[in-house]
């Protein structure tokens, strides 16, 4: 990997970061509304108290200075006090991020596997009944809101069959002193329904992309060559078609990273999973602006960093990127 490529990606990442911070600043400071109320929750009408508040929050300074202060607080993760928790925003948010990532880490790989395997099967049988069946089913699943699928699963497996708990991340009232076997078992029991329903609601786009690129590659000359060499259909598929078809799919997976973090918000709310989605929704209801601002920023930051890392990794998967 060339240094030039690396520095180019780094510059771009920096640009996106600055863009996001600026956008957030504009959103929370320049939108119609009372910035003092946004920062302190109280609506202050007394002019003297108001001026004091503005001074306290640095709102009396010129905009560029305000922006620099804002940038500094974002970089140092100093987001102020949450209105609803009456606690430092970052202290509250830390745990929620971890919980959201646990749910994402459990469901997204599952959904990628279903999508890729299904896409290979459909693509290998393109035009046949199996393909039409798989793609039609996928299109139908596309149209299902993830939380509604989760509700149905909850109804069947939670309520009727009693296999899985309804809500939360751990059994309420049980204390675990460390991460031990009992803790993990409890966690997995609670994780199963949200993770599986989220995975099933999301595999559609992976499947369609994978199928599309498989079908594309079937028409390529090197496939003909491979067949002419006398390779069996299975060898052609597994060695020549699938690895090449993985490239656009990998790209798509990278692009969809953001949804690992945010896609399950509605599922978090349904299962009262203590993740970022619930915090953000509660914050909207309670107008907890510091919390909203910090969550929005953190999510963007995670996506930006993940994209950068994957951009670099991508050069190892697709040698063509390296040459560019």
């Amino acid at each position, binding site marked *: 990997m060339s240094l030039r490529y690396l520095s180019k990606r780094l510059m771009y990442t920096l640009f996106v970061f600055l863009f996001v911070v600026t956008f957030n600043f504009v959103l929370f400071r320049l939108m119609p509304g009372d910035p003092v109320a946004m920062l302190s929750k109280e609506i202050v009408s007394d002019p003297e108290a108001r001026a004091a508040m503005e001074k306290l929050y640095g709102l009396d300074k010129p905009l560029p200075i305000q922006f620099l202060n804002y940038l500094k607080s974002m970089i140092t993760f100093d987001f102020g006090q949450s209105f609803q928790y009456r606690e430092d925003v970052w202290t509250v948010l830390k745990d929620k991020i971890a919980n959201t990532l646990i749910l994402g880490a459990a469901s997204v790989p599952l959904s990628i596997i279903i999508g890729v395997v299904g896409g290979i099967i459909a693509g290998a049988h393109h035009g046949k009944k199996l393909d039409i069946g798989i793609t039609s089913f996928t299109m139908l699943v596309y149209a299902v809101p993830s939380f509604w699928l989760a509700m149905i699963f909850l109804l069947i497996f939670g309520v009727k069959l009693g296999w899985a708990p309804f809500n939360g991340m751990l059994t309420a009232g049980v204390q675990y002193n460390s991460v031990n076997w009992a803790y993990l078992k409890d966690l997995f029991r609670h994780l199963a329904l949200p993770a599986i329903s989220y995975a099933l609601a999301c595999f559609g786009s992976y499947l369609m992309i994978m199928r599309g690129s498989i079908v594309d590659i079937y028409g390529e000359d090197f496939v003909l060559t491979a067949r002419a060499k006398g390779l069996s259909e299975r060898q052609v598929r597994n060695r020549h078609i699938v690895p090449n078809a993985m490239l656009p799919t990998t790209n798509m997976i990278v692009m969809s990273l953001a949804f690992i973090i945010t896609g399950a918000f509605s599922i978090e709310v349904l299962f009262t999973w203590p993740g970022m989605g619930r915090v953000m929704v509660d914050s909207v209801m309670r107008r907890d602006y510091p919390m909203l601002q910090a969550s929005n920023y953190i999510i963007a930051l995670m*996506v930006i960093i993940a994209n950068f890392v994957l951009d670099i990794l991508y050069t190892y998967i697709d040698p063509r990127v390296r040459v560019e």
Partner: protein
Amino acid sequence: MENIKNTANTPEAQQLSPELLEQLKQREKELRARKRKMNMKLFFGNKRAVFGCCLLACFFILAFVVPLFYEYDHEAYALGPRVGAPTPEYPLGFDELGRDVLGILIYGAKASLAIGVFVTLIIAVIGTVVGISSAYIGGLYDTIVMRITEAFMMVPSLPLMLVLAAIVGQNFTNIIWILGLTGWTGTARLVRSQTLSIKQRTYIERARAVGASESYIMFKHILPNVFPLIFAELVLTVQNAIISETTLAFLGIGDPSVPTWGQLLRSARQQGAVSGGALWLFLPAGLCIVLLAASFVFIGYGFDEILNPKLRRR
């Protein structure tokens, strides 16, 4: 199939002899009729597109015809018990305020269709303006606009929607704007890439050679040729908008004064309808959303196969 140009109306054609001009007109008419026939055949040969259109027609009837025969007042509370079970008079039961669920279901169809149409309209306009201008002007403008679009694309839209809803408020119009303003990036990129490829075609060069102005080329040649290519994508945008609105409403971000399906799902969540067995609160509403969204997905993919000749060959 190549586009059939209206050469009979060009100044060059006016200099032809009357018989030749007549022949030219005849020929173009025939070609156009044949193309229309072929498109119809392609459309009706595509079972998914036909199925999607039929489904969509049902929802249009539900939204615009059924309300003529079924009265529902969103302000009429306490018609029955809270989350009351279905009765013969109210076959789908009651919501948490004792309102008629069947009524919400019927009147909610209009809200979902409105969301789909208006959000897609906003997305189509922003996406087309950004995409075409970016590809057409090029240079530094293109780089800056596309970098911003990509940055927007990278940032997840759901948190942004939540933040916007908290800042600007949650009435119906605001929700439409929020969905539209956060969803245009994909369309803009698609329009840009299609414009770039059309810009290279010889007929653009020809138009320029005969002295057409840049804006004429943009409106008369590029826009009409880009549009069919992004049509399928826009249909899928409708589905996306409907699901996003439902998700927001489910999360509690919605206009309580407008009956929507998402609202039913939210009250199902808040009232514990799943564990309480109040199926009427979330099964019919969810099915409606799935079927309406599916109709757009089927139409979208169907049209993609029709409009995208590369797919057709397979």
